[in-house]
């Protein structure tokens, strides 16, 4: 067993975590203003934006993967623009994976943040405006610190969801070892070639880590509720 573990290639795991970490950071920056806007607006465009944001939850990953692949390929204006301007090939590259993951995991970042913001006492936010603080300062100093459980849920679930994605990464990234072959795709490949031992080890590692991460989130949230007397 020790021998197997020693000779095992863990690059796919490293790639998975790198992808998940980058996706979480980028998505946080993008989703934070969006979630804040959705929680505060009374605009008629709100349901439309919410529906678009939630699409990746219901779409088959192959649909999203297909459109992403099409959009990132050199035949589309977007893909061509990146290739001509920055010399980056997006399809079947790690950069392309990150972009695709951001779309795919978007609802998992936006929704917890939005519901966190919506649960805040409106009077409290208005008290901040009356105290002379701008919307941005209110978001950073009042809203965010008071939705820590939602914030952590958003970050962790986005991270975990990105580690766990399969269909989209397979379609957009292919399975290029060391570049786009992430853990979930690696397991698929192992099963294909009937290397069940490796598949078992990989899968077991995935289960244990996912469980530990989720456990940590729930413990943290319970502590937060006690500390601030949240409901």
């Amino acid at each position, binding site marked *: 067993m020790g021998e197997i573990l020693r000779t095992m290639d863990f690059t796919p795991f490293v790639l998975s975590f790198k992808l998940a970490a980058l996706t979480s950071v980028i998505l946080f920056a993008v989703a934070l203003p969006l979630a804040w806007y959705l929680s505060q607006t009374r605009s008629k465009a709100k349901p439309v934006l919410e529906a678009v944001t939630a699409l990746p939850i219901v779409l088959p990953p192959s649909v999203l993967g297909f459109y992403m692949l099409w959009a990132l390929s050199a035949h589309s204006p977007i893909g061509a623009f990146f290739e001509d301007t920055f010399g980056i090939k997006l399809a079947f590259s790690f950069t392309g994976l990150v972009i695709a993951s951001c779309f795919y995991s978007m609802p998992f970042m936006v929704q917890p943040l939005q519901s966190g913001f919506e649960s805040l006492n409106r*009077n*409290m936010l*208005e008290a901040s405006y*009356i*105290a002379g603080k701008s919307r941005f300062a209110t978001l950073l100093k009042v809203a965010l610190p008071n939705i820590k459980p939602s914030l952590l849920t958003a970050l962790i679930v986005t991270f975990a969801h990105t580690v766990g994605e399969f269909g989209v990464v397979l379609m957009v990234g292919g399975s290029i070892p060391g570049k786009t072959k992430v853990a979930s795709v690696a397991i698929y490949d192992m099963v294909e070639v009937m290397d069940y031992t490796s598949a078992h080890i990989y899968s077991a590692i995935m289960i244990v880590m996912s469980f530990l991460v989720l456990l940590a989130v729930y413990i943290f949230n319970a502590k937060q509720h006690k500390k601030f007397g949240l409901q």
Partner: protein
Amino acid sequence: MIQLEIRKSLHGSAGAMNLSIGIEIKEQDFVALTGKSGSGKTTFLRILAGLERAEGNITVSGEVWQDGKHFLPPQQRKIGYVFQDYALFPNMTVEENLLFAEKDKVLAERLLELTELHDLKKRLPHSLSGGQQQRVSLCRAMMKRPKLLLMDEPLSALDPDMRMKLQNEILALHREFGTTTVMVSHDPSEIYRLASRVLLLEQGQIINDGSPKEVLLQTQGSQKFSFEGELLDIAKADVIYVAVVSIGQQLVEVVVSSREAEKLKIGQKVRVSTKAFAPMIVGA
């Protein structure tokens, strides 16, 4: 001097109504705003604070807060606002809540001393009682040395003893800072103790404006006592009838004749009054 003339159409619980208020408020005045729920009191405060838009003009000591062209956002109006539910920042200590409004440590210390919160300044809001939280909220509202202090039923969630204590503190702060104040309240005794002027609002219009005595004392002519209450029961006792009336938190029995009893319906609003007699007052 605050001059205002505002209009807004509202869709309240009783259907559409037009809020239309034009008044002047003297510097350092303490104005109570009263009336049934849904009469537009809170909306009026929110318009003053700039939290809601309305047509019209608001000018505060010569500075235009809003007119046809300008609209000063809440951030730029020098106001303090006390919410019924305190609305403190749960992630900040008592002291931080105050300093968030204005980085003035000296004023914060003074306000905390005045309201006896000094020993609690490092505590988080959720560990305080309702009365303590509302005092923090009051102090926070004073931190910007506001030109106008707005309070929306600030004491209605507190028990009677705590109300009395906070009424005294509000009075003390008003004496100390002389802040022009508009307070929404349903409690006549509270209004009587604190306010120098009362506005009675109904369906978005001011229907009565005067001193607390003029607006709140409901006796007319030779009536000495006059209370409004709800008729709970009428029971026959020998040849007379005894009506049980609920007034405020108390039940009283009133003797009525059989002819009077016929006209009364259980559950209706009644007025219990009496003409000249010699009441006795005994310390309770």
